[in-house]
């Protein structure tokens, strides 16, 4: 297993380098100008000077190599300095956002908490809810519980978050006044009332995202359980006299988890991608909102860095999913 992991990690390096090149070229070839959002009252000569100050005058390969150096050498050094108080990165150029002229990584660090709180928490909730629902729905197929579960997941699946989000705001913020419609990212939890405020402001976005994610996972779980419940080994287990509890939760569940683990693991990078629409609706201003504003503003360094981080996470979680397979099913061996 260790061999396998190391081999996969080594193989990931060229893959990621290639991905970074493709992202870079795509962004470079895409039409769009970081100066386009500046009012027309600013004359073109001035815009040209501003473009030069952003380093857009350099040829493509120089800019790409610069970015690689900054991403793989300077930024880790900055992080290292930050933790150990050293000064390796002193005076070195970091990856700078075109919009704010501030280091991209510090913006990422600033945005991470609200994204993890809201999107991460909703993902955990969704998984915790969806797995039991999937199991019960499959075990009691066509019961009222199964019908209800199917209905709720269809609703969650088919109603877009920009609709359910606004609907919740209209009901709970405008009419009832229970929850704030705008997320306060500066809020700090210091005592019980401030914790309660955090719960209230997270309630709606977390609910919207939980419904959406749970719908997906519970359907997968149900389908996978149904596949396994009719297998011969289940009859054997029952014939041996094992209790239903052991049959379902030990035998069937373990086998059914294999495809579901892939779905769950590959969904984790999406947490870091934020939830573009939901973040926009509730003004959570996390990583998703940052990505979309960067795209609109043609902020290439920021889009490049963020998409590349997602690429790294996707490769990583693919590997993690593969390793978990091996744990769930001893027959799967990679060596």
């Amino acid at each position, binding site marked *: 297993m260790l061999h396998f992991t190391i081999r996969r990690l080594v193989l990931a390096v060229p893959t990621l380098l290639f991905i970074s090149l493709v992202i870079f070229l795509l962004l470079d070839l895409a039409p769009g100008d970081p100066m386009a959002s500046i009012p*027309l009252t600013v004359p073109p000569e001035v*815009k040209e000077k501003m473009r030069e*100050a952003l380093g857009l005058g350099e040829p493509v390969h120089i800019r790409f190599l610069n970015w690689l150096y900054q991403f793989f050498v300077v930024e880790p050094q900055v992080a290292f300095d930050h933790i150990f108080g050293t000064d390796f990165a002193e005076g070195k150029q970091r990856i700078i956002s075109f919009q704010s002229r501030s280091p991209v990584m510090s913006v990422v660090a600033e945005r991470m908490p609200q994204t993890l709180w809201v999107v991460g928490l909703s993902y955990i909730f969704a998984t915790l809810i969806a797995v039991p629902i999937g199991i019960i729905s499959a075990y009691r197929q066509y019961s009222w519980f199964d019908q209800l579960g199917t209905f709720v997941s269809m609703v969650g699946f088919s109603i877009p978050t920009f609709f359910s989000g606004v609907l919740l705001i209209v009901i709970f913020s405008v009419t009832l006044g229970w929850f704030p419609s705008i997320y306060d990212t*500066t809020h700090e939890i210091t005592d019980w009332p401030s914790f309660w405020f955090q719960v209230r402001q997270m309630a709606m976005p977390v609910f919207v995202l939980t419904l959406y994610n749970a719908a997906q996972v519970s359907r997968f779980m149900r389908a996978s359980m149904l596949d396994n419940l009719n297998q011969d080994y289940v009859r054997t287990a029952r014939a041996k006299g094992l209790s239903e509890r052991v049959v379902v939760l030990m035998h069937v569940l373990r086998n059914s988890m294999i495809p579901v683990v892939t779905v769950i693991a590959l969904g984790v990078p999406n947490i870091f991608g934020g939830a573009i629409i939901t973040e926009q*609706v509730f003004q959570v201003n996390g990583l998703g909102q940052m990505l979309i504003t960067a795209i609109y503003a043609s902020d290439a360094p920021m889009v490049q860095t963020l998409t590349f981080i997602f690429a790294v996470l996707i490769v990583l979680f693919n590997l993690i999913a593969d390793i978990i397979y091996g744990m769930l099913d001893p027959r799967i061996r990679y060596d």
Partner: protein
Amino acid sequence: MKLKTALMGTVLGTVAALSMAPAAFAERGADGHVNIIYYQAPSTMNPYLSGGTKELESASLVLEPLARYDETGAMVPFLAESVPTVENGGVSEDLMTITWKLKDGLMWSDGTPFTSEDVKFTWEYCTSEGGGCSQSEKYNDVVSVETPDDLTVIVTFGVPKPFPYGPFVGAQAPIVQKAQFADCTGEAMASCTDQNFAPIGTGPFVVDEFKTNDVVSLSANTNYRDPMKPAFATATLKGGGDAQSAARAVLETGEFDYAWNTQVAPDLLEAMLAKGQGQLVNSFGTLVERIMVNLTDPDPALGDERATAAHPHPFLSDIAVRKALSMAIDRALLTEIGYGDAGRPTCNVLPAPEIYKSTANDACLTQDIEGAKAVLEEAGWVDSDGDGIREKDGVKLSLLFQSSTNAIRQDFQAIIKQWWEEIGVETELRNIDASVFFGGDAGSPDTFQKFYADVEMYANNFDGTDPEAYMANWECKQAPRPETQWQGNNMPRFCSEEYDALVAEMAKTGDINERAEMAKAMNDMLMQEYVIIPLVDRGRLSAHANSLGGVILNTWDSELWNAADWYRIKE
């Protein structure tokens, strides 16, 4: 007698003060917290690094210029004692120098004195090589800034400046602190993140925390020049979402006190207002949604000479066609559909300030489809083959109408297309992503400067109140063409010696009334040639809570220009 007069004076003064400013009795910070929402979040607090409105306006809470424009467009001194003019001797007779006197005893928010050195440094900062200062145009032609003493600034220009209020005036050109930014000139401008995110200013508020593209937390400046102001102890400027959610947060849920640019469908706003939490404020500036008419031929077959003055347009070079296109449009209906209270129909490309506003073209306010048809008939454009499209000498009136991607613009395009087809002009529509259309990339065929179409629609305005530079946009030499790398603002490629002469004369004239006459004449020339078809004078529409007092919406400067005077209305 003397004593009596003095006493009376005091009494009257007190009475005046009482009735004038209810907030003046509150102490600084007595009114707690104010919440402001900008649906486009500011990305930096340094206006010299971004030309965007959201950054200029949020920075205006902290940084101040020597003088600002008020809601009528008049200049009011902020950091300066008074506004220098030729009459008061502040501007030299030859219009080459302007002398600003600063208010005495001003402090930066960090408690250090504000001096003329800071003003001089601001000029050096913005014009330093390699910095890419977005407002460097404001400092055009400045050859020196002298500081004979701590309170005097003498700005010398290289050419006569009839309107010498570019440098250090308005939200675009505020003063930054020398001590803070001394190491941030030139290429270092961008890397000074801490300074750019939390500049030290003289304004009513101080940045406590800045989260880029998200939120700014501010608190009252303890060294602000008026000891009673600002009334609010802290302020939050939140960004993100869209115009509708911003309007909702003020008008429906009451979470926020002020929302910037609540440009939402008029019927939705109506429903939100019914909640009774807040109100809308509007004000008009110089922003005009217009259609530009291409006087050159955009035919792809022309290769490098496409859309250049070498080939006049096959039918738009005929004034009758241009006139008919303008007559067929119902501007009042467009305004109602697209902008509601935030717009009004206009027949001028220069709609304001009042003294520059021409009334010579107001006939365009009424739609005249029949008249437009008659104009075309008379000029020989007839539909001879019965396909509904007029033609003459084998040239069909068939045009390509482009604009940037934007819901309101696409509505406008569709409606205008209908009217034009009614008068026998075939219209094909096209929309281009704003970042490409306005991007100015000389390599792209889709920019508004290249204008590879017959007509195009967008909005433009000018900073401040002086239209000299704006009207100079339509000089011959401003036409975008290969020699200028397709830069320039004269999209119609309009070229008239008479017009150029007026531009040159205006640049030499100091008298405000004569300048107004010239600007009007230029506006009328463009309108009567129908090279620009103005549609809607677009104002600003913002919302504030009923409990927020002192809001005066200003389109000539930052909307937050008088945030120091805002206060909480007590029940």
